[in-house]
């Protein structure tokens, strides 16, 4: 069974869990994801792998509590078991030949950006990390990013942490100051990635965006996760989750991401009410 070995709250809405999953840990690479179910009636949700320990056989996930399933997941504790945990799925981040990379993360997306930054750093790549959050209470993994980056820029919407402004402002400043990146890797909200890609296109810097669409099986079977990249339909689960950011149709991805919003909101409220009653 997939036991929760460790549970830590990173901020009021973001939780880290280390799961016992030796088979997944053995093969996991940064950029890949897993699919889990909390219980026998649960839905399948994809979460990107935040870290892994091959020796201990554990895989770390970091999730934001946004819906019924993540709410249920957050109510599980160390020692509890997940119903299902399958992976690693998708393709790993390509790191070959890179010398200097800007990693741009936003919100809970930083949980996925961090292992990428870490791996690049370990490979000897010069890493500049630019991370953004709404405010200081939501900042996660600051120390970890600092340890893996030769340059670290923290941004917040309200200026309560780091500089006030958007990650695109910081990235633009760095590029303008003469920093030459052979790649930008961006992971975060779709709207943020869209604007990061728009910016890097102006400077013609190859950019990779990590997509996290609605998914069921994660093996190429349903096509629910499809998106348009360079005019062609791709499946995020097997062709991605990382794609050439300059070719992604972000507007379509945003519309598809909202497909079940009313259902999700209702399910989330029901789950919250259920847990309130239990208390």
């Amino acid at each position, binding site marked *: 069974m997939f036991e929760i070995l460790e549970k830590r709250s990173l901020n009021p809405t973001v939780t880290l869990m280390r799961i016992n999953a030796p088979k997944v840990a053995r093969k996991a690479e940064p950029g890949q994801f897993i699919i889990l179910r909390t219980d026998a009636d649960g839905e399948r949700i994809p979460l990107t792998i935040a870290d892994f320990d091959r020796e201990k056989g554990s895989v770390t996930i970091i999730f934001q509590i946004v819906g019924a399933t993540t709410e249920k997941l957050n109510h599980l504790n160390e020692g509890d078991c997940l119903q299902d945990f399958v*992976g690693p799925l998708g393709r790993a981040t390509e790191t070959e030949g890179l010398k200097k990379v800007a990693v741009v993360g936003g919100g809970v997306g930083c949980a996925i950006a961090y292992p990428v930054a870490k791996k690049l750093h370990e490979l000897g790549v010069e890493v500049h990390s630019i991370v953004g959050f709404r405010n200081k209470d939501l900042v996660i993994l600051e120390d970890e990013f600092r340890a893996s980056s030769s340059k670290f820029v923290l941004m917040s919407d309200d200026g309560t942490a780091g500089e006030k402004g958007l990650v695109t402002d910081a990235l633009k400043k760095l590029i303008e100051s003469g920093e030459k990146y052979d790649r930008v890797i961006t992971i975060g909200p779709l709207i943020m990635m869209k604007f990061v890609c728009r910016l890097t296109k102006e400077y013609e810097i190859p950019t990779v965006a990590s997509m996290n669409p609605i998914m*069921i099986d994660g093996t*190429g079977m349903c*096509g629910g996760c499809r998106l348009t990249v360079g005019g062609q339909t791709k499946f995020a689960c097997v062709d991605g989750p990382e794609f050439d950011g300059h070719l992604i149709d972000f507007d379509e991805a945003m519309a598809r991401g909202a497909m079940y919003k009313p259902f999700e909101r209702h399910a989330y409220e029901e789950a919250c009410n259920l847990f309130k009653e239990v208390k």
Partner: protein
Amino acid sequence: MPNMSPTRNEMPVQAPDVRNKNFSEVALGYTEEQAIDEAKRCLGCKNKPCSTGCPVQIDIPAFIAQVAEGNFAEAYKIITKSSSLPAVCGRVCPQETQCESKCVRGKKGEPVAIGRLERFVADWHNAQPEAPVEKPAPNGHKAAVIGSGPSGLACAGDLAKKGYDVTIFEALHVAGGVLSYGIPEFRLPKSIVQKEIGGLKALGVKVETNTVVGKTISVDELMKEEGFESIFIGSGAGLPRFMNIKGENLNGVYSANEFLTRINLMKAYKEGSATPIKAGTKAVIVGGGNVAMDAARCAKRLGAEVYIVYRRTEAELPARAEEVEHAKEEGIIFKFLTNPVEIEATEDGWVKSVHCQQMELSEPDASGRAKPVPIEGAFIDIEADCVIMSIGTSPNPLIKSTTEGLDTQKWGGIIADEDGLTSKEGVYAGGDAVTGAATVILAMGAGKKAAAAMDKYMQSK
């Protein structure tokens, strides 16, 4: 004295306007009396033409003779000598083009209802108290099966009966493959699928769900590190095709695989399910196969007005006649000679309508079916808030791309010989992964053939 009635015993079914609102099984099965009466219609032909029409050569006259005598247990034994999944095949086999098409009684009247009798015998058996299963003596060899669909289950069952230590690896969280995620409850109750898998487990077969071969572990690792001497790949044809027309990625457009997986595997049709589904108020299903019928009938049950759009005519529909009949009875509307060219959107990115080209038939094409050609300038729009693309599937490339030395066809099918042997020593394959999308029984037959060849291979090592 045989029963010389030219017509077969009717299968009791749920009334159309009742069943199109629930997911319970449509066909209810013969009673013992009906089964015996139907069995008596069999003439017991010595040359068994029916058996030659069966992909796994069940001794059909022999099992039917036992049913006629009321010896249902004996009948079950005869069927299971050749078939691993009788309760499944009795329901989903296209008998009308196989065994029943060869039945002598079909020349002047209706053929013996062989499929219904097979189903009756299997259901009768499953209703009996479970007899303890004798586990075959282990022969000390280890074999792996990738995929728990019909071919994998058949292969695993045959190997286990010979004493092999068999492990099935399944990517999803439930075993059964297309029997679990694809075919709906009202045509194949999931309890029956789980019962068949339970039978395999009782024989000692291990089932490891949540294991994506090619990702979690590779074929080479299974052989070199986990000690499996031979491997059967039955990974099916699960990759959905799309038409590549404008608007196909709009909200409300599903592949049939996604639509059916949400319903069958994730139980989205049940009140309070954690997995959402949107069949909308007006659903258009594109395609004319069995999967299209399944998707249409599911959408109907979820409350939509349902259209099936097919570019040829009724005569060319690839779906079983029985499925088409059931769909019609349930109120599905067919639009023949109609081919979608664009899906139009509402302002907020949802499906609004399907813009279709009207077609006419011309000369037969390579497949032997009349080729549909566009009628210039003739278009219709069908309003819809849900569109389900059901135009076929291809084999999943995951195993191919991670297994060195495994040769595949250009279109993705694994290359295998008559016995299922691939280009890689000890590695066999069968079912849709080799042939492209076909039937449950053909996949099962391929699994059994491969099991026999794997047995020979491992014994000669």
